Structures are given as C-alpha cells and as structure tokens.
C-alpha cells in the first residue's frame, strides 16, 4: 500500500512516497508562484519516479507553508510535527531537530516517545533562514548550493554583525568592494547565521542528540558552523535532509491508514 507526504515550502516543494514502511521515491523542486502548482508538479515528479499514479496513493498528508492549497492532500499536519517525526524515524535516538527552511528556522525538542515537548521559531528577523542565504548568494553572484564548499576554503572568516537581510547584503557588497576573499565572507555569513540559530535552540535548552533538517543542512559549511556555535556534534542523516518534512507527512499518512 502506498502513502505520500507533500511539503510545499516558500523556496522549494518536496514529496515522499512510502510503500509499506519504506521510502519508495522522493522528489524536490523549486517552488512555483502558486503553491497549488508546486504541489502538483512535485507530486507528479515523485509518482513518476515511483512508477505509480495518484490513484494508487491510499492517503496523502500535506505540510509546509502551502499545505492548505494542496489539492490532493487528504489531511494536513504541522511542519513541527512532520520534521520531528521524520527525523526520529531515521534516527530513533534523536531528541532535538533543528530545521532551517526558506521562511524560518525552527528548533524542536522531542521526548522519548517522540512527542514535541518544546519548540521555537526564529523571531523578528530573517537572518537564520534559507531565504537569508539565498539573497546573500545572489548578492555574491554564486549558486546557493556552492556556498558550503566555498566557505570550507576560508582562512580568516570576516565578522558580519548585521542581522537585517537587506543591510547584510549591503555589508557584503562593501566587503567584496574592500577586496575581501569570497570564501572568508561566505564562512563569515555561515557563522553569523549559525549563531542566530544556535541562540534560538539554546532558548529552549539543548538536548544531547541533535540533528539538522531542511535544505540548508546540505550546506557543509553551515553544518559545521552550527556544530561550532552549539558546541556539540550534530548527527547527520543518510537521507536527503530536505525531504524530512515530507517524510514526516508520509509517516503521518501511514499512521492515518493503519
């Protein structure tokens, strides 16, 4: 029996199809202007990979910012729960999930049963979100996915104090103008962002076993910057961290049918 989860975010849309307890197929696309479009597109992509049709899906759960405009979703579930559920399914001992999405960053604490006991969002400002990195990449004329590797070549990272997305952009342009090394700037950005996210996580008290989900988790520079800021190791997962929300949604769907 097939179940699906669909996570429509502001930057990207993801979908996961599960077949009796295993991930059968997953797919990620950049979000389209209309959430509904994104949902259809990402789902058809996933169905194609799975080699089945939408009719074969017994139950589909939607999540993410666009969750209410997913036409084929039978139910919706909060991102917080989905990321918690997805991460825990992959790493049973995990007690804290840090998700950096396009629109916001979240820290989620789980109890032994996998229930959410505390969670927090980034407050006030976009610094510490995927959007922040996206805009900065744009300002530097590099690809978002290249940032990680670039930052790893940093020798002495610059300090980037400004927490406002747009001002940070100006700051970066002036740093480039000042002839600073690109890798030092990128790594400085990661540090700045990691500290914001770490502060948020510490705000709800750190747990031992921490993992990271969301597209930004693929950014190796960011990953290690966050480890440094938290002062502890982060468990990495073999599955694409970007699909964890959708995975959690699929798991929710599975519970619903069982």
């Amino acid at each position, binding site marked *: 029996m097939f179940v699906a989860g669909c996570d429509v975010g*502001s930057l990207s849309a993801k979908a996961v199809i599960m077949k009796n307890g295993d991930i059968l197929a997953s797919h990620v696309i950049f979000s389209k*202007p*209309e*959430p509904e479009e994104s949902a259809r597109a990402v789902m058809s992509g996933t169905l194609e990979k799975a080699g089945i049709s939408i009719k074969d899906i017994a139950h589909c759960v939607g999540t993410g*910012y*666009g969750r*209410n*405009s997913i036409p084929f979703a039978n139910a919706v579930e909060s991102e917080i729960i989905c990321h918690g559920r997805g991460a825990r399914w992959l790493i049973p001992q995990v007690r804290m999930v840090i998700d950096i999405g396009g*629109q*916001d960053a979240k820290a989620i604490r789980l109890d032994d049963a996998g229930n959410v006991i505390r969670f927090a969002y980034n407050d*006030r*400002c*976009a610094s510490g*979100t995927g*959007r*922040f990195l996206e805009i900065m990449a744009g300002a*530097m*004329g590099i690809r978002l996915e290249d940032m990680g590797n670039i930052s790893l070549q940093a020798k002495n990272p610059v300090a980037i104090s400004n*927490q*406002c*997305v*747009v*001002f940070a*952009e*100006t700051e970066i*342009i*002036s740093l*480039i*103008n000042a002839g600073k090394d690109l890798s030092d700037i990128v790594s400085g950005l990661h540090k700045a962002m990691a500290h914001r996210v770490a502060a948020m996580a510490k705000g709800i008290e750190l747990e031992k076993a921490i993992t990271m989900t969301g597209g930004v988790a693929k950014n190796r520079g960011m990953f290690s910057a966050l480890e440094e800021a938290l002062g502890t190791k982060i468990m990495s997962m073999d599955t694409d961290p970007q699909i964890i929300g959708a995975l959690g949604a699929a798991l929710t769907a599975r519970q619903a049918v069982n």
Partner: protein
Amino acid sequence: MIVAGCDVGSLTTKAVILDNTKIISYALIKSSFNPDQSASEVMEKALKQAGLAMNDIRLCVGTGYGRERIPFVKKTVSEIACHAKGAYWLLPSARTIIDVGGQDCKAIRLDIKGNVIKFMTNDKCASGTGRFLEVMAKLLNLELEELGKLSSQARNAITLAATCTAWSQAEVIVHMNSNTSKADLAAGINDAMAARVSILVKAVALEKDVCMTGGVAKNIGVVAAMEKHLDVPIRRLRVDPQIIGALGAAVFAKEKMEGK
C-alpha cells in the same frame, strides 16, 4: 562646457553627461563587485551614446557607496547632497526630496537656494526600501510596475508592517493562504511602504514642492499612497528618477567649473 556625474550604488551604477543645461546622455548598469570597473563601464556607455571621449569631459564628480573608488573623478559628494542637487536642478521649486533606492531611503529638505538643511535616513533595518517591494513582488509573482498598478483595484487592503522584509513576507503568505486577492495584498504592501517612508519625510518637516527620486518613484501604487499619507501632491520629474544622484553629481561638476 561638458561635465559628468557618476553614482556608484550598491545595486546599480549610473552616469550622466551634462552640457550646460542639457542632459546629452545617461547610462545605468547593475553594479559589479568592483566599483572602479562598474564606474568605467557605465561611463563608457554614456560617452558612447553621446559620441564623446573621456577627455571631452571637463570634470566628473563621483557619488554613491563606491565613490571613493572611482578612478576618473577628482571630487566626490555624498548621495544626499547629489539627490538634492539633481532634483533641485530639474525642479527649482522642490523643497522636499524623497529618495527610495534599493537599499536605503532618504528624506531631504532644501532651502530656497537648494542647499540641504535637514535630512533623515532609515537606520533601522531594510524597512521602507526598494528591496522590500522587490521581495514582495517576487512573492506575488508580479513585476514591480504591476505591483504598483494593482493597488488601485484593491477593495480591502491588508495591513502590514514594512519593518523586517522577511517577517512581512511570512505575513503576506498567511494572507495568501486565506485567499486574499492580489490587489488587496499589493495595496497593503504599497501602503505599508508608503507609511514607513512618510514617517521619515514628516520627520524632516515636509515642505512643498515634494518630489521623489530612486527606483521606487516608478511604483505608482506607492506614490499614490504617499500622496495620501503626506496629503500633498508628489511632483513627477522629467527624467528617469534613478539617475538623479548622478545628475546631481554632474551639476556639482558644472558649478565647480563655473567657480561657484
């Protein structure tokens, strides 16, 4: 006598070539990461249009964030003074100039001679900058101009704080999910923008005539909302509002040559 002005901003670089009272050519390019290069590039473009060579330019004044790095200028002046000078040159009755660029926002008060007697700039975050509108337009999948035009069709505009760009973004998404019409969203966005800018303008004690420079001046929705908030008409300028800074620099050059 031919002079020029070059404005190297963080997002765009502009050049204006002036022959006494006539703008013979101007150019606008996206800033590269190298101010000297952007400056030379935009200058060449402007010179080409005017069919001139660099040595035809008697003096070139530089302005903008990158002004210190422009190779071919001997004198630099701050953007604030340049926007004032340029607007005043086009519209001598101008007493209040509102410049909303991509990255910041200024309100400038002039005296009868066109000297800056007061100014305010946004210190906080990106609140009330062009970037705010860009991000919102992208979010609504609209062109900047459309975003402006849509306002007029709004029935029940949303209220929004144009403080943190990304924060507002999350707000707008909530409204999108509750199927608010694009017009109502656009109107809310433009009005929030206008409200923020108006605070700066009022803070310099606005005086007529008022005119607007910078890219956002092209957004009719914001301009209309500003006129409501400020309760004065905003005078349109006859040239591209984005080049006023460079124009002002050129006028400074001209005055310098005339020994003013």
